[in-house]
């Protein structure tokens, strides 16, 4: 479906949010395939959920996101989806850990958890203060918010996973929900201390509907259909997790 961009927000110098009409039911953690005419079609999480209006939030890093960044209110984009499974948000006390753009995917999940009255703690990890996004939006949910920066320009100096380790050793959480660089998520798997965990993965996607096989990990798990959210039981059996992803041709690219 082609839809018209209705509102545009600049989240930081490289990140924008678009809102558009797209009246379907969506679970936090699900994503769209966004067609940027003449350029590309890329997966982007649904970052804003309302009955008729949906949003995407993206960081410009390459051709597609750069072109998307230039679009304005009234411009048209193609939207397919929602695709994927989304997060499973259950009662308890949840620790959300978002690294980089990962926080985009997590924010609607935090909002849903809060709407259900769940106790939520959020770690937002970025390289440096000016990359921070959604701080206000997350504060408004009434969650406990921690910020980490690699360079110490704001909040805790260090990696989100370092702070997570500390929080986990002094507080009791019923589950962890994370999205961010895969090595960060892998680290969290190692330190999670038997706490149930869900992680949202990113893989190169072409079809988004489980046919092309480009996003497959482990023993035939399709990130676009069986994921992008996987729980720790599944992650334990995915040997590629934290090890490698594949490029557009299907060649392995090892994480470093």
């Amino acid at each position: 479906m082609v839809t018209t961009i209705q509102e545009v927000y600049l989240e930081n110098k490289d990140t924008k949010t678009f809102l558009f009409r797209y009246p379907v039911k969506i679970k936090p953690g699900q994503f769209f395939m966004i067609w940027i005419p003449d350029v590309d079609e890329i997966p982007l999480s649904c970052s804003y959920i309302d009955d008729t209006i949906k949003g995407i939030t993206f960081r410009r890093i390459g051709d597609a996101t750069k072109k998307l960044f230039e679009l304005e209110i009234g411009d048209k984009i193609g939207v397919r989806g929602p695709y994927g499974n989304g997060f499973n948000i259950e009662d308890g006390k949840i620790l959300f850990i978002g690294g980089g753009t990962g926080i985009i995917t997590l924010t609607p999940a935090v909002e849903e958890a809060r709407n259900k009255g769940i106790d939520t703690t959020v770690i937002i990890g970025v390289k440096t203060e000016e990359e921070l996004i959604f701080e206000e939006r997350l504060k408004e949910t009434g969650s406990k918010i921690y910020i980490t920066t690699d360079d110490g320009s704001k909040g805790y100096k260090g990696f989100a996973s370092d702070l997570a380790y500390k929080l986990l050793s002094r507080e009791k959480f019923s589950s962890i929900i994370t999205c961010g660089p895969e090595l960060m998520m892998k680290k969290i798997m190692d330190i999670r201390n038997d706490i149930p965990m869900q992680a949202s993965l990113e893989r190169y996607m072409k079809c988004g509907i489980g046919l092309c096989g480009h996003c497959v990990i482990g023993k035939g798990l399709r990130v676009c259909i069986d994921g992008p959210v996987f729980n720790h039981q599944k992650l334990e059996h995915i040997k590629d997790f934290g090890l490698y992803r594949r490029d557009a041709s299907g060649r392995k690219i090892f994480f470093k």
Partner: protein
Amino acid sequence: MIDISTNIASLKLENPTILASGILDETAGSMISILENGAAAVVTKSIGLKPRKGYPNPTIIELEYGILNAMGLPNPGIKEYREEIIEVKRNGGIIIGSIFGSTPEEFISLAEKMESYGVNALELNLSCPHASGYGLEVGQDRKLVKTIVEEVKNSVHIPVFAKISSNLSDISSIAKAIIDGDADGIVAINTVKAMTIDLELQKPILSNKIGGYSGRAIKPIGVRCVYEITEEYSIPVIGVGGIVSGEDALEYIMAGASAVEIGSGIYYRGVDIFKKICREIESWMELHNYRNIKDLIGVAH
């Protein structure tokens, strides 16, 4: 006991369902999962000599009655793909290596490598409708088709199947060229050349503009091709195109197919479509008092 095992040339299959090329066959894990979901064999995605990214997205789009795609033959190249094949073989499945090239030499080189990696048979992609210089552009040239098949046959010892298109003025003469080249089987059909335009953006949706149509809508086209080939020639045929149910598979089998490949059906019915289709075939046979699926091959002629 109902026997749904079948053969294509010397290849013995537990049941007639095979994963079609280009669908969920980029990684070993994916192919192993499909074999565990009931496919008797898998066809690899079409592999070329060098890594290819394929076309930019959009490369695939769901239509009302089918799927339209122009992936552009993305693949990691024959060298890197080796480990996927080795892993599938280690797990014990039957794997058919699909290859594409533009000259007999390219095909031979790919075929020999595939054989050395341990594939059980080869499928020559002479039919991809949207890759310039490959696929259908090769597959509509009768002489070239014959030469490719012949030279590949002379270079390997495993069965060689040629996959053809429905976008041919004269399917019979291409089938003849394949038979003259001494192929062990024909796979029909690849996707059908098609296009869809978005009215809002006033553009073809696929980045390559033209793509290949698969899924439910194309079944009557595939059935016709299988019937036409088996009406005239006695070469084994594998039917592909729009198979979603056991009944669809039986329609191809009655039209003359010895086995079937399934691709887009996975979109409609999940990865366990292979098991489901086998169960549906068995229950149809039970109801109609058939014990051996081989008794149904080509009965519609």
